[in-house]
């Protein structure tokens, strides 16, 4: 899994005065980011927010709403989210496992610069068309992280279909964990009367939510990440041999994020390079650590600024959301790689995850007598390339030698 959006909220435009929503009981300031990352999912009316407090505690939230806020119950909704998902989390100290020795200044206007040059174009909410030099950098970074993997493992690569069975996501526990990101794929029900009725009615009614009444198929989704494809592929199987099984894939992933702005920092539709380790607990844990360290060394060699810290997934609204978040942080099940993209802004470009036997059990993947253990690494390639460009600029002459050479060797710009 690669859910990496902490502190990534885009600034939202202010429209009218904010509505202050008081928390019925203050929350420790350390949990502020956990409130922030969920607010856009509380109500579609929320278009911006600011936490109110003294640093040690958060006492209220100032909400900017899309229209004068008449929605009753907004206060109750915010408090319900905080009570369920945030308040029971016990604060942990931020912990970094790597900090780059380089301190490069990142240009916060990189997206605007790329757009002005015609290298990127916004084509929808959280959807950006990318051209050169991003495409060559995309290929370079993808090859680079696979090359690092190949130093220690013979990975099997797969290309998965874009659609994923809804039942696979259900089996992975996605519905209870991350309902906010779900993207169902549907189609008109295959019945001639349905097609005819649709053709007759849409010119009058237009395409609106009522069209869903002619659909009714929710058996496929867009994948939120690649590793569920891998678990489904290995589902019901016993791992052969003693060693680690390493599977990698690259594919488009989709997560509804509710708050988008015009940059590559936060996308609805993005590309993940995913690596899944399957095997014994010790082998998986060791492989994650070893690979992670090599990636850090690679970033240092390029001269990128950044750090890697203990993170957690945005579990939302489930009955055990807080317990799962806290367990992840305490046990360091997730490390998030963050790179600066502006003077005061960073984005998560990858994560290194240990699942224990969660997916081995869920997908009935066995090893020896018991469930297999797993871990995965995911890189958000658009974000990685964007962070690189924010730190090194768009002029190839200013890029580090390995990048310039790598891009040219592959026939890029």
């Amino acid at each position: 899994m690669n859910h990496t959006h902490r502190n990534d909220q885009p600034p939202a435009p202010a429209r009218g005065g904010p509505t202050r929503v008081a928390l019925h009981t203050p929350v420790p300031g350390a949990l502020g980011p956990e409130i922030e990352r969920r607010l856009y999912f509380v109500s579609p009316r929320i278009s911006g927010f600011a936490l109110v407090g003294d640093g040690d505690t958060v006492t209220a939230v100032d909400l900017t709403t899309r229209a004068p806020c008449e929605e009753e119950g907004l206060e109750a909704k915010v408090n319900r989210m905080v009570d369920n998902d945030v308040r029971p989390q016990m604060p942990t100290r931020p912990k970094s496992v790597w900090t780059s020795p380089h301190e490069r200044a990142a240009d916060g206007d990189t997206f605007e610069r790329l757009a002005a040059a015609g290298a990127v174009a916004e084509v929808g909410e959280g959807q950006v068309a990318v051209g050169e030099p991003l495409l060559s950098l995309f290929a370079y970074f993808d090859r680079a992280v696979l090359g690092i993997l190949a130093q220690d493992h013979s990975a099997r690569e797969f290309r998965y279909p874009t659609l994923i069975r809804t039942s696979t996501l259900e089996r992975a526990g996605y519905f209870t964990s991350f309902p906010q990101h779900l993207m169902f794929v549907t189609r008109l029900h295959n019945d001639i009367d349905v097609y005819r009725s649709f053709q007759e009615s849409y010119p009058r009614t237009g395409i609106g939510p009522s069209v869903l009444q002619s659909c009714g198929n929710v058996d496929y989704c867009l994948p939120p990440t690649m590793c569920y494809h891998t678990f489904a592929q290995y589902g019901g199987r016993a791992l052969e041999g003693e060693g680690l099984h390493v599977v990698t894939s690259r594919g488009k992933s989709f997560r509804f994020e509710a708050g988008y702005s015009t940059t590559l920092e936060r996308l609805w539709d993005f590309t993940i390079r995913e690596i899944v380790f399957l095997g014994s607990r010790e082998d998986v844990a060791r492989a994650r650590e070893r690979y992670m360290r090599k990636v850090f060394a690679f970033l240092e060699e390029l001269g990128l600024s950044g750090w890697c810290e203990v993170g957690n997934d945005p579990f939302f609204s489930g009955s055990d959301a807080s317990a799962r978040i806290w367990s992840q942080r305490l046990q360091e099940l997730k490390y998030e790689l963050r790179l600066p993209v502006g003077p005061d802004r960073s984005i998560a470009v990858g994560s290194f995850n240990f699942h224990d036997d969660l997916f081995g059990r869920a997908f009935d993947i066995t090893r020896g007598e018991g469930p297999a253990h797993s871990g995965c690494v995911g890189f958000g390639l658009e974000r990685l390339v964007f962070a690189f460009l924010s730190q090194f600029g768009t002029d190839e002459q200013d890029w580090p030698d390995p990048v310039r050479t790598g891009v040219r060797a592959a026939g890029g710009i």
Partner: protein
Amino acid sequence: MTTENARERIHTFLREHTGGQPLADTDDFFALGYVNSLFAMQLAAFVEKEFALTLGPDDMDFDNFRTVNGLVRLATSRTSAQS
């Protein structure tokens, strides 16, 4: 409360949740697969209630939760003078 008293109470609690597996004080019962990762939250709630402690960010080190010795250290950390 003595260290040994705390140790006994912790063993009693763990026995109920690990299917009665014999547990040495240094065994990592998470790594051994006796409990799943979510059990950590139950452990924290147990320590707070059983030993009348409020855990803070500085206590949130997994080494305090994955062995009996770690839990004893956590449970007696505020009362070390008596142990």
